[in-house]
Structure formats: structure tokens, C-alpha cells
């Protein structure tokens, strides 16, 4: 039996499932209520997973739980949905309710569909059932599914607005913090700069009612995180959805704006002049970062769109991505990652190792080997990736065991993705657009180190 097969079973760099993705999506709707028709431990898949990552809004205050245990399962769990949902709606006065269940309840053949349909009919607000099996999909498919179910409740039958009014469908709003505020501000700025208007974003942290703005957009952009739901969303809206590159990095932002200008029927020549001017402005702020960061070798652990964004951005700063661990699978694997890089005008870096859905053991192994060989300077990843590295011994780069005076520092650790434990944005700090490149360059300059002797060898 091969060791490689063991990798399939190991806990992964990102092993969150659809229920977590749904919780992230529900949290992105500011007047939502999540009714969890689940067991007691399953609660951790929602609020606990988000509690570290999002300091801006507490989903815990906007969730109910139907407290299903063995007794309730035997007596019939669906009957609990009515009283619990009504009670929580009365307490919280939400604009929309989402009901999520789990596999073990579904296994008993409970007809929660009818219970939820009855609630939807009786209450003055939408009550949506989410279908999120815990044995398939990933966090991204859970998010996209929840978005799609929400979009089904908007009125798409009216005539779309003008083409230059642009809507984004599939934006991954995973916390109410300055990174996303910054992203949305930057996207608004950029779309306006090329002659359009950003009319609506699903999701963007606003209330359910605010999503109606999407129906008035004449151009709808399919964000990469819409994933496999794009076809379904195309059908339900009756509109064309234009796939766009994930605008992280200079080249990717150029490509994004060109696609937006084309899809929205804007003046392409004017758009091109504008984006070049904006890019030049950003480039003018990157010289110090390029000088300091040039040549540093970096490992990136992220889902394909974010991974491609980081690899492109790092290359634009003169850094050298050497290892990529791709998270999840519903947003694609290596092919999707490479296609996203090419869209942004980048080639796959020579010698880059790409691993799909790495386990935490694999993350440790790959990073440790490169540290031991002196071939890694930084790791971009989530708190989960960084945590698994903290038990690696620091002696390889502190010099003590080589008979040299201990000095230097371990790899820099830059938090990105889900979840972030230390990195919280109290002000607008985008990672998208041209401004995003400048901000992330600053972060790379300031990034903390895994271990730091506090000593640097003096240069003559």
C-alpha cells in the first residue's frame, strides 16, 4: 500500500466543507439569520470557524440551532424547524433566513424540505433551504451555492439596466474587515475610471435588500469564485455572465479592466489609456519594495484564483514563487491555476512545484525540506498553514548548529485566505486592483518571521 495513498486521508491545508462556505456566505449578508438544523458539534463548522477570521461581524449573534441529538432524531427532527425558526425570526427580525442541515439528519429521510417550504410561505421574509452534503464539495462550492439560492429570490424578470452599469456575481466576501472594504472601494474606483459604474456585488457585506441592485445591472461579471454555479446563475437570471480574471496583481488587473470595458461596451481606447496611467501610478510606488524583496523565494498556499493572484503579484515584485499548494477542488486544480496565470499575462514560473490539496503533513514536509536546503524565504498561506510550521525546529537557519554565531530569521509568514488569525484589517487594505499590489507589497516588507534571532550580519 503506497505512502501516496495515505495523503488522500490526511487532514488538509484546507479541509473546510460546504457548511462552512455557506456560513461565510450567510455572514456576508448583514441582515441574515442562519438556522442550523444540525448536531451540537456541527456548530463549530459555522460560527467557530468564522470567529477567528472575522472580527467585524459575529455570526454567533445571528444563528439559531435546532439542537438535534439522538432523542430528537428518533422523535423526528423536522418538527423542530418551525418553533426554532419562528422564535429566532421574532428575536432577530432578519431580512432573510437560511436553513442548513447535515448528512446524518438527511440519512434518516426527514422531510425538512416541506417544513422549510411551509416557513417560507408563512413568514414575511424568504426562508431558503441550503443543500450542502458534507461528503462532497468544499468551502467554495458551499459559498457559491448559497449565493445562487439567494439570487433566485431577486426579481430578474425586469429589463436590465444600461450596459455600463456593472454587477459582480460571486465575490468571496469572507469577513467584514478592511481587506474587503478596500477591495470593493478599489473595484468601484477602477470600474468608474474606465467609464462604467459598479452597480452591485453579490456578496458585499450589505443587506439582502441591497442585492436587488444586481438586477439593475446591464452587465454581469462572473467572478472566479462562482465556480460550477455559473450555468445555474445564467439560467436563473436570464442574463449573460461574463467570466473575468481575478484582478490580483498588475497584469491581472489590466486583464480584468479590459474585459470589463469590452463586456460593458465602454470606450476601449480610453479604457486602455486609463488603466495604463493607473498602473504606472501604482508601479511608481513599488520601487522600494522591489529593491528589498527581489529574489526572495516564496511558497504560496491558496485556492486557484488567489494562488494565481499571489504568484503573479510576487513575480511582479521580482520575487520567486517556488512552491504552490492549491486548496479545494471545485474551483479547479493545476489547469485552472495555470490558465489564471496566463490570463494575467504571466508564464508559470520555471521550476515551480504545484501540489493539489496538500495535507498539513505535506505542507510541513515541503516547507521543511526547502528551509533545510536554504531555498525558501517566505510562506504565504492561512493561519492553518502557518500553524503547522510552528513546530518545525528553527536551528536550520539560526546558525547555531553549524558552528556559526546564531543570527538571522526564519521564513516570513504572510497570512492570506481562510482563516486568518493574526491578520486583521482595521482600515481599508485591499489585495485586489492596483492599490492592492501596493498594499500587499507593504505587507510583504513588514511581514513577521517564524523565528527571529534579532541579529543581522552587518554588511560592510
Amino acid at each position, binding site marked *: 500500500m503506497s505512502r501516496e495513498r495515505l495523503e488522500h486521508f490526511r487532514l488538509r491545508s484546507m479541509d473546510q466543507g460546504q457548511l462552512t462556505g455557506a456560513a461565510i456566505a450567510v455572514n456576508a449578508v448583514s441582515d441574515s439569520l442562519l438556522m442550523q438544523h444540525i*448536531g451540537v458539534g456541527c456548530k463549530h463548522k459555522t460560527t467557530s470557524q468564522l470567529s477567528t477570521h472575522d472580527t467585524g461581524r459575529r455570526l454567533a449573534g445571528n444563528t439559531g440551532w435546532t439542537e438535534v*441529538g439522538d432523542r430528537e432524531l428518533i422523535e423526528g427532527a423536522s418538527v423542530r424547524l418551525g418553533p426554532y425558526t419562528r422564535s429566532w425570526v421574532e428575536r432577530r427580525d432578519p431580512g432573510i433566513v437560511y436553513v442548513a442541515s447535515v448528512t446524518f439528519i438527511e440519512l*434518516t429521510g426527514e422531510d425538512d424540505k416541506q417544513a422549510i417550504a411551509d416557513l417560507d410561505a408563512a413568514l414575511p421574509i424568504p426562508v431558503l433551504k441550503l443543500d450542502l452534503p*458534507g*461528503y*462532497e464539495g468544499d468551502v467554495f462550492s458551499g459559498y457559491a451555492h448559497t449565493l445562487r439560492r439567494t439570487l433566485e429570490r431577486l426579481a430578474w424578470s425586469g429589463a436590465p439596466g444600461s450596459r455600463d452599469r456593472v454587477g459582480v456575481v460571486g465575490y468571496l466576501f469572507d469577513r467584514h474587515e478592511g481587506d474587503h472594504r478596500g477591495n470593493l472601494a478599489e473595484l468601484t474606483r477602477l470600474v468608474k475610471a474606465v467609464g462604467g459604474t459598479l452597480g452591485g456585488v453579490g456578496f458585499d457585506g450589505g443587506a439582502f435588500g441591497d442585492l436587488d441592485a444586481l438586477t439593475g445591472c446591464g452587465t454581469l461579471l462572473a467572478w472566479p469564485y462562482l465556480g460550477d454555479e455559473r450555468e445555474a446563475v445564467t439560467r436563473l437570471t436570464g442574463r449573460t455572465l461574463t467570466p473575468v480574471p481575478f484582478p490580483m496583481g498588475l497584469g491581472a488587473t489590466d486583464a480584468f479592466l479590459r474585459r470589463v470595458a469590452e463586456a460593458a461596451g465602454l470606450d476601449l481606447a480610453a479604457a486602455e489609456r486609463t488603466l495604463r496611467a493607473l498602473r504606472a501610478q501604482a508601479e511608481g510606488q513599488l520601487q522600494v519594495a522591489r529593491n528589498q524583496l527581489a529574489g526572495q523565494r516564496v511558497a504560496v498556499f491558496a485556492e486557484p484564483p488567489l494562488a494565481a493572484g499571489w504568484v503573479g503579484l510576487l513575480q511582479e515584485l521580482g520575487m520567486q514563487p517556488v512552491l504552490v499548494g492549491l486548496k479545494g477542488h471545485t474551483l479547479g486544480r493545476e489547469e485552472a491555476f495555470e490558465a489564471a496565470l496566463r490570463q494575467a499575462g504571466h508564464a508559470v514560473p520555471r521550476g515551480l512545484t504545484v501540489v493539489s490539496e496538500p495535507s*498539513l503533513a505535506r505542507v510541513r514536509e515541503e516547507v521543511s525540506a526547502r528551509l533545510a536546503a536554504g531555498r525558501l524565504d517566505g510562506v504565504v498561506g492561512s493561519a492553518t498553514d502557518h500553524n*503547522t510550521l510552528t513546530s518545525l525546529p528553527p536551528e536550520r537557519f539560526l546558525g547555531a548548529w553549524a*558552528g556559526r554565531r546564531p543570527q538571522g530569521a526564519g521564513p516570513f509568514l504572510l497570512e492570506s485566505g481562510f482563516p486568518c488569525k493574526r491578520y486583521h484589517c482595521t482600515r481599508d487594505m485591499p489585495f485586489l486592483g492596483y492599490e492592492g499590489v501596493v498594499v500587499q507589497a507593504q505587507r510583504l516588507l513588514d511581514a513577521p518571521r517564524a523565528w527571529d534571532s534579532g541579529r543581522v550580519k552587518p554588511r560592510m
Partner: protein
Amino acid sequence: MVVATEAETQAADEAFWKRMEKRREKRLGQPCCTQSGMSWTMIDVPGDFAVVIHGEFDCVNCFHHHVGRSAHRYYSTRLSEADLTQGTTEEALEELLRLIAEHERPEAVLVLGTCPVEVINAPYLETVERVAAETGVPMVGLRTSGLALTSMPKMLDWLYVTLAKLPPGPPVDARWRREVARLALQAAFTEAIDPSGDDALAGFAEAVGRLTAAGDGLPEDAPRVNFLGLPEQEGRVPEPVLVLHKAGVAVNGTYPDGASLSSWRAIHHAAHTFVVDEGMYRKLTKRLKRGGQAVHALPPPVGIERTLAMYRVIGEATGRTEALMALVEPVAAQLRRKVAAFRRHARGIRLGYTLRMNNTYTTQALAHDGLGEVLALQELGFDLRLYIQGGGEPAVRAAHAEALAAHGVEVPFDTFTGPSAAVEALVRDRVHLAMVEDTVIEGTRRAGIPVLELRSLDPYLSGVSANLTRLTRALGQARRRSA
């Protein structure tokens, strides 16, 4: 079709609510999923082991992966819908267990069940037993899930007795290991042991040799003891371990916080085990007693008097009372003067403390029904009020009063239904200072009430000064509110 009126629906809902609360309302602890709790606990245990979650992959999300030293030791059988509905769950489990045995060969494998395999009654305990026998790797199957609701203390006790039942290992000298680590860092960063000369390695080896020859410095016949449920002091060796060593008592291990897999396997190398809240470890202490250990109850060691009481119990059991009290009484005398001064300032300050909302698997938080800190706060002179989550029916209140009295807590209490109701109660009672759990903190702060987090009081005598400093700062805020 009969459609209920709104009034009928409301009446039916109310009756439903009352039925539901009866199952758990009289207990002070939170219900828990045993899989989630055990996974969460083991993820920070150091050691060579594997934890297998037997279920769909999403069952691994009942605990965090971004904390703890052992996340890379976890596995999931990643059962599919077909596995669950066609009964092929055991093929995946057997394959995984054999892969672990062949390629990792850890000292132990824990296999945790989940709700899906529980619902289909998968025979995984037999699978685990058979593969363990055939491969020679110790493997234990545990019928965990979120279905049979139990309490967090019971779940932890079950996990700990499981670890204590693993094949025994040699004694673990944690002190030796700490000293070697300290020496290594010293060698690396200072000239105390010259790291750059020809004798670098020899110098270091000599220092280590001197250390190991000295052993822990105690005679062979020194009493050897375990601690169970001793509160941790972050980044420090717990005070009782240091004090006991000075008094000539060897500490075999401190459990469960900070214990490694090796420590658990060495738990039987002690004559005495001292327990904070024996009620939390019924199965484990029964096992230790069966192995010939004497088990002694300790009061929660937060605050002066209870910490001194703890040392007296240890002294009596080990015949070291005089030596122990000679070390701690002078310190306690100084601290009593400080506490007396503090009590004068705390008089009249109403402090609200919430109970039974806390989702936690830490022993310090669960011991004595979460009342450890409350007892210390009583010592400090606050006008203390407790707020317990749950129903407010007379029978429930009577049960709470009884539970509190059993722990020696005689303060007013009230009940509340959820986070916002807790804040309303704190405001209604004009509380000056609140110690509340995290889902209530935001609302309490917005209501203008200064907040201290739960479990922010340090234990032992060495924690008293820090507690007084922290509480004095909080008192300042509370006095401004009461003005």
C-alpha cells in the same frame, strides 16, 4: 388541510420550548459532541500518535486546525454518500488504518466515530480491534458523536482514561527536558557555553552530562506524585511543581493540560494523584486507584486560602507538611495584607459573572462547574452576582442553588436565555463590572459596562499579585461607571 392560526402556532411553540429545555436545564455545563471535544483536545497534545475521524470529511470541521501542535497527525476516512448508504464504510477505515500502521507506525491510534457512522451503526470498533491485533499498533476505537449528548467533563474523562489505558511507557522527566532546552538556547545565544570554539560540542555535552547525572536532585525514595486538573500558568512551570520539588517531592506528571502522549503512558509511575475536582475524572481516578494509587481531592487553587488548603492536603498525604508550609506561609502572609487593602476598594462594586454559556474543553474552565474563579472573587470582596444561562422555572432555580451551595458559593444568581438577555440582565442590575464569555462581551461593552474575560484570574499564590493589579485597573473603570 387545517391551517393553524397565529395564536395556535404560538401556543404550540411555547409548549415545545418548555419540553426541550427540561432535558438540560438543571445542569451547569454545556452539552457537547464527544468527537469534536476529543479532536479539539488531542490537537495540542504532543506525541507520536494518529487521530482518525471516521466519517464524511466535513466532520473534521468540528474543531480548529489552525491551532495546536498535532494537526498534521489527523486523518479522515472521507466517507462518500455511497459508503454511508451501501454500508462500505469499513473498507475505507481498514485501508486507512493499515496505511498508518505500515507507513507511520505511531505509538497509538485513536479512531473517533461521528454522527453519520453512528446513525448507520457501522461496526467500526470491530474493525479497529482486528487491525490493531494484526498490525501490532495500539489502536482504540471510541464511539464518539454529537448524538448522545453528554457533558464536556464526561467527554474529557472518557478521553483521559483512554489515554491512561494505553500500553504503559517509562517515566518522563519533564524537568530534565526543560533544562536541556534551556541549556541549548543558552549555548546558541550566549558565550556561557562557547559555541564557536573547537570544544563547542564537548562543552555542551559536558553540561548535559552533569545535568543528567544530577537527575532531579531528589533522593530515590522521594514521594512521586501526579497532578490532575492543575491550572496552567502560561509559559511557566506551574507553581506547585516548583514548590513540591523544593520540598523534596518528585512530580511524575501534570495532567491533562500540557501532558504529552508519553506522559499519559507514564501516569502509573506515581504513588499519589492530587485532583482538582475529582468529579470531572471519575473514570480516570477509578483506574488509577485500581492501579494502587492514592487519589486526593484538591480545592481549586485560585486565591490565597484555597491555594494554602491545596498545599496542606499535599503535605499531609506525602508527609511533607512542614517543608511545604515553611515555603508558602510567608508568601501568603504578605499577600493577605495586599488583599485586605484591595477588599476596602472593592466594597460595593457589583460584579456580574456569566455561567453555562462557555463553549470550552479546557479543564480549568470546566472544573468545579466553572466556579473556580467565582470562589476567588468571593475572597476579594466584590458584590458578586451570577447569571446562569437557561430556564428560570422554580425547579431549575432550586437545582442551581443546590449546585452552587455544594461548591461553597453563596451569592445571588439569576438566569437568562441568550447573549442579549444576559446583557439586559447586567444592565438591569446596574452591574459595575462584568466577567462574561465571548459571545456576550461585545454587547456588554456597548452597554458601557467594563469587561474582564472569563478565566483571566491567575491561579496559585504567584497569581494573586497579578490578579490584584488587573482587578485594580478594572475597579478604576467600574468606579467611574458607578459615579
